[in-house]
Structures are given as structure tokens and as C-alpha cells.
């Protein structure tokens, strides 16, 4: 391994999401409190503690996408006047749960308790993250947007920091005139808050087998848009969740519609990545969702403002890996702390960051960053509100593995039983294993558009992936190595094509993958348009051969979200 320049900090957070930023800000506040107590009562102050946060996006908030209805408990604990100062769109005013058929909407007579959002807020996660970033900077945290962590650095088993990505490397991997090598950032403790399917968290979990004995990770992908609609069309704080159309009964997921401020509405569709149909295209299903008369009426005369997509971990309690290693901690989505029953992970991510900060404070005072000291964090977390909440929802997503109706029944019964189901723990399989062969689903390897439910796009209400992607602000430096590493390109044109007809060309919400057929030679070839990538991580999760690995591209590349 070549030698890199080394920089030392005390505490390093990887990824400037709500989990890391809440942790970093809380740590600064707690250090401040500690030093005040010490000043009056005696003891050892903590001086000049350097806290750094790496973020791959061009600015803080650029890569943060959510629904989102947020439970504000953690935020209020972190920033007591948050309800006045934070960029909250609206307090939840009313809520509906609808069951959709192709052209009808049936209202559930009651909103299931786990979907009740009284006291919660509709927010844009991108905005909230940006705001938290500003607060963290003011408190003395150093945030570095545009710098990705690309490798975990170890000393034996101890995590000693991360390496940042090189910049100015061409597509063949050669340095360009602007080459700027990455550096090795060493820290006493490194906190992985990379969000869903963290690329470093993934290697750490595998290397240390942190998920031994746990359920397999499983994910959903959410595809969404923000629209501006005519005045009065939807009240801010209006919350709507849907089940049914356009998803088939055997597919986990549903739609969401939230009224934001400024005559804007957020509309999206969540699709469980344990789906079996290789012809599934989550973006297309989302477009169909907008064609439902209820949604089409809502959006008529409006205009699309922003588009985006992202996965979220729904494995729940039994998929949470070990969260502490020597010198390292996992927080937020990277730690699988997402409540799939409530479809919420923002508050749990914030709780986890803050509880990690409590433990880091103790570790700094004791100058001990061993696994046994850092294990205070998972104990606190699992015994606390967030842990109890996740425990109650522990079997929720698994209950749906046979589809909607069965799941509603089981999910509902579970709710009444406080998460207990007939059997104690429901197991999961990785999403990469759930696809069935095209032939098994459609009776033919080449189903017609009608069979797969393909539609044409009108450019007003429905958009192609290329058109939609433009509204995400995505861009990447073109002359750099492709950050979607396809291990074996032969499988793509043989087994994968034969069995599934290249599902990557459909599951990617940015149309990064295309199969080109050379007319003359009749040879197929996979083309990877990586510059369109939204960093949603669907391909890393869903590829049936685990053939695609997502690694961070050159810093700053990716979407430029501001309101999703």
C-alpha cells in the first residue's frame, strides 16, 4: 500500500447525514457542558477536541432524501427550540390511509396506530440536514463536503480511520494534471454514518462479521418527486399513505403523499427490494401511481420541481449488526436503525448519533476507545426509546414476505401483540436472492409490455427515467473510473440475460445500466452510464448475482437535492 499523508483528528464521522450531524453536534454540546461543570467543580477539562465529518456530496444535504414525516423527539432533545428554528415544512394536520385499485381509492376507516403521525412534522430531509450542518459547524465541528471516505483503515482489528478518495484520476485510473491524492484520516474513534447500505460500513460489517447470527439485510427503494401545485390543492401537513395499486399484491410497499409549504407536495412510491418479478421497474410503478385519478387530480396543472431515489434498510431489529468495534461505531441507516413499521428512520438515526456521542464523551474522558468501552453505545441505544421502538416492530417487514394481504393481517396482529408473532423471530433472505426467472413469472423469457405493465410517458404527468433524472441535478466528472464496479461482465450477457433479461436495466431509477446489442455481431454488452447515478444503492442490494459493487465516485459527484 502506498503511503499517504496522515492527518489526525479525535473523532471522525463518515457521512454528513442526520445521524452523524446529530452525533457531532451533541458531542460538542456535551463537551461544552462537561468543561463548564469542571470549571466550577474541578476535574479534567476536554480541550481542543477535533471533530471532523466527511461528506461525499457537493454540499451538506445534497445527497439526503427521505419521505418525510419526522417524529421530532430527538431533534427537540438536541436543539430545544427546533420547532421554531428548524426548516420544518408543516406540522402533520390530517392523515389518511387509502387502499387503491386502478381507478378507485378506498379510505381505511381508521389509521392504523403505527401510521398515526400526530405531533410529527412534514420535512425535507435535504433542508433539515443542511440546517443541522450549519449548527454543527457553528459549534466547532469541521465538515468537509466533497470528500468521500473510500477505505477503512485498520491496525489489527482496530479501526484507526478512513482514507479519502483520490481526485483527478482518469477513466483508466491514471492521474490527471489536477491529481490530488486522498489522505489517511486517523481518529481515536470513527463513526460510520453513511446512511443506507454504507459502502465502508458494508466492508467493516463483513470483515468483522458484525452481522453473524443476524437476519439478512433487506431494503426498500423509494422513488419520489416534489411538485408545485395550484394554490389550495393540498394543505401543508396533509399526510396520505396508500397500499394496493400500482403494486402487485405480492410486492411490499406503497405510496406516500405529503403536503409541504409553498404549495408544494412530495409524492413517492416505496417498493420492497425483496420483490420477485424481474420485470419490476420501481420508477415506472411510481409513474403509474401518479396516473391514479386521485394523484393525477392532485398534480394537474402543477409542475415537477425535483426528482430523487434512495434505498432504506427495513430488516429491522433482528438485522441490526453489532454496533461497536475497537475504534469504531455504526449509527443511523448504516446501523439498520430504521423502523419499517412506521417507515421512519430520521428520529432513530438522530437518537443513535446522540447516544454514540454520549459514549464517545466517556471514551474521551477515559482515553479508552476499545470495543468494551464503546459497547456502552449499543447498550444505551437498545435499552432506550429507539431500541424499544425497534423491538416492538421487530417482525413487521418479515411478515410481508408473502405479500400485502397476508402482511396486513400479520402486521396488524403483530401490532396488537406488541411485535410478537406466532413464531418468535421471522427470518429474511437477502434481496439479491428473491428474483424469480422471467419465464417462471411470465411463462416466457420475453413478456410483452402489456404483461409487464409498461406504459408510455407523456412528459407532463409521467416522465421517463432520463427526463426525471434531469430534475435531480445529478452530475459527475465524466473522466474518472466508473464507480459501479461490475465484477463479471460475462454473467451479464449469459446467465443474467437468459434468466432475468438484465434486471439492472429496470431496477435502477436513474437508468444507469443499458444493454446494447451490436447489430452486426449480435453480441450484447452492458453499458454503465455512471454519471447519472443517484447514489441510491439499489444495484448494490438487488443485483441477483451480487455482481455490482457501489463505491464512492470522486467527491462532489452525485445528485444536488435541495427539497426531497
Amino acid at each position, binding site marked *: 500500500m502506498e503511503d499517504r499523508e496522515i492527518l489526525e483528528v479525535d473523532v471522525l464521522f463518515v457521512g454528513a447525514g442526520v445521524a452523524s450531524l446529530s452525533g457531532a453536534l451533541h458531542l460538542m454540546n456535551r463537551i461544552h457542558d462537561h468543561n463548564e461543570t469542571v470549571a466550577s467543580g474541578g476535574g479534567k477539562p476536554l480541550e481542543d477536541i477535533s471533530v471532523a465529518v466527511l461528506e461525499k456530496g457537493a454540499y451538506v*444535504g445534497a445527497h439526503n432524501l427521505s419521505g418525510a414525516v419526522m417524529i421530532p423527539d430527538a431533534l427537540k432533545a438536541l436543539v430545544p427550540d427546533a420547532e421554531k428554528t428548524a426548516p420544518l415544512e408543516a406540522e402533520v394536520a390530517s392523515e389518511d390511509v387509502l387502499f387503491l385499485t386502478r381507478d378507485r381509492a378506498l379510505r381505511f376507516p381508521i389509521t392504523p396506530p403505527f401510521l398515526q403521525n400526530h405531533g410529527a412534522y412534514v420535512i425535507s430531509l435535504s433542508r433539515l440536514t443542511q440546517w443541522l450542518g450549519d449548527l454543527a459547524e457553528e459549534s466547532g465541528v469541521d465538515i468537509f463536503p466533497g470528500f468521500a471516505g473510500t477505505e477503512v483503515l485498520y491496525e489489527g482489528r482496530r479501526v484507526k480511520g478512513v482514507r479519502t478518495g483520490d*481526485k483527478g484520476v482518469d477513466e483508466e485510473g491514471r492521474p490527471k494534471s489536477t491529481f*490530488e491524492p486522498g*489522505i489517511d484520516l486517523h481518529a481515536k474513534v470513527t463513526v460510520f454514518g453513511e446512511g443506507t447500505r454504507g459502502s465502508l460500513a458494508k466492508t467493516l460489517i463483513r470483515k468483522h462479521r458484525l452481522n453473524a447470527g443476524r437476519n439478512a439485510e433487506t431494503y426498500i427503494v423509494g422513488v419520489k418527486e416534489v411538485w408545485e401545485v395550484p394554490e389550495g390543492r393540498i394543505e401543508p401537513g396533509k399526510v396520505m399513505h396508500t397500499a394496493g395499486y400500482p403494486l402487485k399484491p405480492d410486492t411490499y410497499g406503497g405510496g406516500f403523499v405529503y403536503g409541504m409549504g409553498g404549495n408544494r407536495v412530495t409524492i413517492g412510491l416505496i417498493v420492497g427490494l425483496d420483490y420477485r418479478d424481474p420485470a419490476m421497474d420501481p420508477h415506472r410503478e411510481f409513474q403509474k401511481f401518479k396516473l391514479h385519478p386521485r394523484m393525477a387530480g392532485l398534480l394537474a396543472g402543477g409542475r*415537477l420541481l425535483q426528482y430523487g431515489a434512495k434505498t432504506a434498510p427495513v430488516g429491522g431489529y433482528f438485522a441490526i449488526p453489532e454496533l461497536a468495534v475497537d475504534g469504531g461505531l455504526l449509527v443511523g441507516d448504516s446501523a439498520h436503525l430504521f423502523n419499517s413499521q412506521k417507515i421512519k428512520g430520521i428520529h432513530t438515526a438522530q437518537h443513535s448519533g446522540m447516544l454514540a456521542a454520549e459514549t464517545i464523551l466517556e471514551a474521551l474522558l477515559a482515553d479508552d476507545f476499545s470495543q468494551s468501552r464503546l459497547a456502552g453505545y449499543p447498550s444505551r441505544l437498545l435499552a432506550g426509546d429507539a431500541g424499544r421502538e425497534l423491538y416492538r416492530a421487530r417482525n413487521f417487514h418479515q411478515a410481508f414476505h408473502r405479500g400485502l394481504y397476508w402482511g396486513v393481517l400479520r402486521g396488524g396482529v403483530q401490532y396488537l401483540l406488541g411485535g410478537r408473532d406466532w413464531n418468535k423471530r421471522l427470518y429474511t433472505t437477502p434481496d439479491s436472492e428473491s428474483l424469480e426467472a422471467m419465464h417462471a413469472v411470465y411463462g416466457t423469457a420475453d413478456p410483452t409490455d402489456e404483461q409487464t405493465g409498461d406504459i408510455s410517458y407523456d412528459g407532463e404527468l409521467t416522465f421517463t427515467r432520463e427526463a426525471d433524472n434531469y430534475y435531480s441535478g445529478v*452530475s459527475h466528472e465524466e473522466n474518472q473510473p466508473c464507480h459501479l464496479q461490475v465484477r463479471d461482465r460475462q454473467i451479464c450477457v449469459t446467465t443474467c440475460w437468459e434468466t432475468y433479461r438484465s434486471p439492472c436495466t429496470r431496477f435502477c431509477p436513474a437508468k444507469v445500466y443499458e444493454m446494447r446489442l451490436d447489430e452486426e455481431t449480435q453480441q450484447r454488452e452492458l453499458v454503465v452510464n455512471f454519471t447519472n447515478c443517484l447514489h441510491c444503492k439499489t444495484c448494490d442490494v438487488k443485483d441477483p448475482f451480487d455482481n455490482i459493487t457501489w463505491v464512492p465516485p470522486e467527491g462532489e459527484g452525485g445528485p444536488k437535492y435541495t*427539497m426531497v
Partner: protein
Amino acid sequence: MMHIIVCVKMVMDPEMPFSVFKVDPESNKPIVPDGTSAVLSTFDECALEAALRIKDGQDCKITALSLGAELPKSLLQKLYALGADEVIGIEAPEFEHLDAFSTANALTRAIEKIGDFDLVFMGRQSADWEAGLVWAGVAEALQLPSVSLVREATPGDGKVTAVRCVSDGIEAVEADMPALLTFTSEVGEIRFCSLKDMMKAKKKKIVKWSAADIGFETVERMQLKTLFVPEMPVVDCQIIEGDDDGEKGRRLARALADQGLL
């Protein structure tokens, strides 16, 4: 020691999708959407890069000067991280929507206040309004020889040689220093700042001046009549394929000629 003043504007990120951009019909002013971040104006980055390349080869002090209604601290710090020796930010609410004459006036006064300099570098035009007028106003007010559309500058012996991009090639001109030069994107690739330099930059002191500190007064001579976001034309995109660049070029030329565009 050579002293270069580089003027750098901070603008709304031109790479944001146009859908987030709005104009307030009442005041005729663009509304910067919540959450949109600012960036260094593209051509001004080229000007800074050109100055940094001079500094790579000789003793040279670079003063980066930025003026605006709101100057994000992170961008001022980025100027340090990229290699400026001193960063001056002049921030005042009255700098919102200045016309080119007022901007030129303000920059002139700021440059006079900085004093002693050999060169003033600017971008050919700003990435937001793209008027391309300010440089001429400053050069005139300071009575400086000026060269526009420069891609490379070599100072030496009281003179600066500037290579200009012109429509049919390049042109090399020489000017007495002090002089004012404006730069184009032909400067080439802009350096990255390293994480280490970003870290150091966070500790450096940014010089802050107010409008009064430079004795600013508006000299508004241009008024905006209407501002609107045009309807997006429906674009039919055709991708020209070919085995190599030459082939693609020939096919592109043929396609354009076929449609009477060439």
C-alpha cells in the same frame, strides 16, 4: 514580490436543475430557492487558477476579493484552501442585484483600498448574469491596460504577456503592469483543494469589509425591465455514434448539414 488581486463572485450554482429557479414577477428579481447552495463563479475560478499557476513558479501574493449580499463562509474558506494568501469579503445587503456599473464602482474602491498590486484578474463574465461588463468598468476607472479572454498569463519585468483566445485561434499580447486581465475556461482544468488545505483554511482569518469601509455608493445606470423563465423547448436528442472521434465528427457534420444547420 508580485501581487495579484483576483475578483471572485459567488453565484447560485448554475448546475442546479432549472426547475428550482423562479422569478418574482412583482419585483422582477430571481428568487433563490431555499437550500440552493452558492458556488464560485466558473470563469472567476479560471482567473484564480491562472494566478495560482503564476504563484506555482515564483514568489507571488494572491489576494482574493469577493463582494456580495451574502458570502458563504465555506466558499471564502475555499479560496484560502485553493491557495489565496489573503481573502477579503465585502458583504452588505445593498450588494444584492447591483448593476454592472455599481459593481465596477465597488470593486474599484476595494482594489484602491487594497493598494499596491501588479495585476487584477477576473473571469470573462459572471456565471449568473453573464453581462461581461464589470471588468471594463474597473479597468477604465483605475486607468489600467486591460486584456480580455485570456487563457494564459506570464508576468515578467514590468510587463505581462497574455495569450488570448480569439475566434480564429490565439493571440499573444503584451501589456504594461499594473494591468487587468479577464480569463476564459480555456485556462483548462482547475485544481482541487486538498482536505488538509481545507482544514488549515478553516483556521485562517477572513478579512471582512463593509460597504462603508470602501466608501461604496450606487451609480445605477441600468434597470431591469423584465425577467422571466422561458418555456423549455421540447428537445429531441439524437446521439451520434461512431468508432472513433474522427468518425463521430464526420457523422455529426453530415447530420448538421442534412438539417441545413451547417
